């Protein structure tokens, strides 16, 4: 599936500033990056801004991340509550700012969408997947988005249809595609399997 995102490993890059957005276990990707930076870590931290929120599984490594001593550290309860801050940072930023995203696919996809809207090509953003594999899925029928989908199929939280979770991904929506699994034979719904943890 060509649209299935491929994630990498965060690496420090030269830049005028460094913006990190992470959730849950994504904190460890940031900690590892500063470990790798070695002697350059302190000069990197002076120009770093970290926005962090707990993961969908409850993992909260905020204390360790705050202890890094970045120029700015901000903890949010959720991406929705962090988003206005992220948009403001991007609106005020200059070219040269490096973007690093780490954690769950849902968080990285939504933050990447804001960066793309700010004018950067999607491949200019570094990503590293850590932690939960739960998915953010859009129902192609009612267009509602269900967060933290664990099973396949699952029941759309908006219209109630039983949806098959595809690998087909939309950067614009920051979501995978969910398609009705019993459209041809209503009621013939296979057992839900926990595919995402």
């Amino acid at each position: 599936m060509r649209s299935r995102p491929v994630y990498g490993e965060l690496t420090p890059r030269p830049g005028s500033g460094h913006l990190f957005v992470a959730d849950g276990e994504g904190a460890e990707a940031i900690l590892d990056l500063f470990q790798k930076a070695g002697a350059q870590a302190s000069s990197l931290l002076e120009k770093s801004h970290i926005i962090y929120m707990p993961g969908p599984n409850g993992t909260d490594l905020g204390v360790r991340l705050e202890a890094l001593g970045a120029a700015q550290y901000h903890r949010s309860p959720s991406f929705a509550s962090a988003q206005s801050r992220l948009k403001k940072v991007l609106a005020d930023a200059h070219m040269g700012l490096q973007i690093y995203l780490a954690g769950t696919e849902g968080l990285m996809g939504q933050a990447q969408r804001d960066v793309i809207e700010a004018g950067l090509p999607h491949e200019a953003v570094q990503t590293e997947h850590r932690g939960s594999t739960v998915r953010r899925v859009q129902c192609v029928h009612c267009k509602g988005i269900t967060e933290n989908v664990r099973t396949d199929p699952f029941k759309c939280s908006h219209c109630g249809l039983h949806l098959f979770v595809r690998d087909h991904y939309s950067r614009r929506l920051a979501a995978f595609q969910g398609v009705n699994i019993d459209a041809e034979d209503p009621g013939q719904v296979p057992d839900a399997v926990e595919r995402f943890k």
Partner: protein
Amino acid sequence: MSVKAPRISVTVAEVLEVNPLIKRFRFVRSDGQPMPPFSGGAHIVVEMDDHGTRRLNPYSLMSVPEDSSGYSISVRRDDTGRGGSLYLHQHVKPGMAMEIGYPVNLFSLDQRAKKHLMIAGGIGITPFISQMAQLTSLGGRFELHYSVRNRELGAYVDELKALYGDRIHLYFDDEGDKIDLNRLLAGQSFGTHLYVCGPKGMISWVRSTADAAGWPKGTVHSEEFLAPPVGQPFTVELAQSKKTITVGATQSLLEAMEAANVDAPYLCRGGACGQCETDVVSCDGHIEHNDHWLTDEQKASNRKIMPCVSRFGGKTLVLDR
């Protein structure tokens, strides 16, 4: 595109001396139909019958993209080149019938950008003239930094200033002006894309400075057409066509294949687009890779050649064409 690709029959409507080195040519369709639309940054290949030598040279379109009444190009005379620009300067007159290819864009604006920062050197101004016209009608933000040797050779300086005012920044070499690139790049708002067209040295300077300043690769765009260099004549075997051809001193390998009626693909004819990439069957000698399409590893392997600009020296070269 290849030698057998469709062409547009045109009439030269106007030849204008812009300055002692640059002439502008305007082409209209001989059949009176509108020209195909193009986007800012596109180029056309102009076909010339230079006293028996067939030349196909790429030139950026500088007219307004929405203007389908004709195409304009500006050509800088190169007295030491192979003769294409000299032919245009000395022999092409209003009323002449010529053939051109369809427009191709290898240097288009990235519409995702929030702002377009353009850097031009000398005749590298031409693609930006059509791009700025396009951005003006679409409402895009831009600024242009244009470096020229001196005021006399600063083509379109006054016209651009009159059209775009303080969005045009001029630098005259002989007055000691220099683009303060680090400062310019550092002050650009997030989401700006950078475009550069000009001499080779300028392009690599802008690219490396932007890279060091943390500009992602996808936000930096450049265009440079190489003129096929002159060199020693050499012989090439074409395996598919079962022909052996000789490439003349001022001819490119692509031109020699075309002269032998071999249908070889091309787009830019300047080592940039990759369209003419050809497999090497065997090589006993040295390929002079002049393109900036193949990677260094590909060049070292001698398994590929770009016939539009690259040459060969040695015993035998067999190509899969």
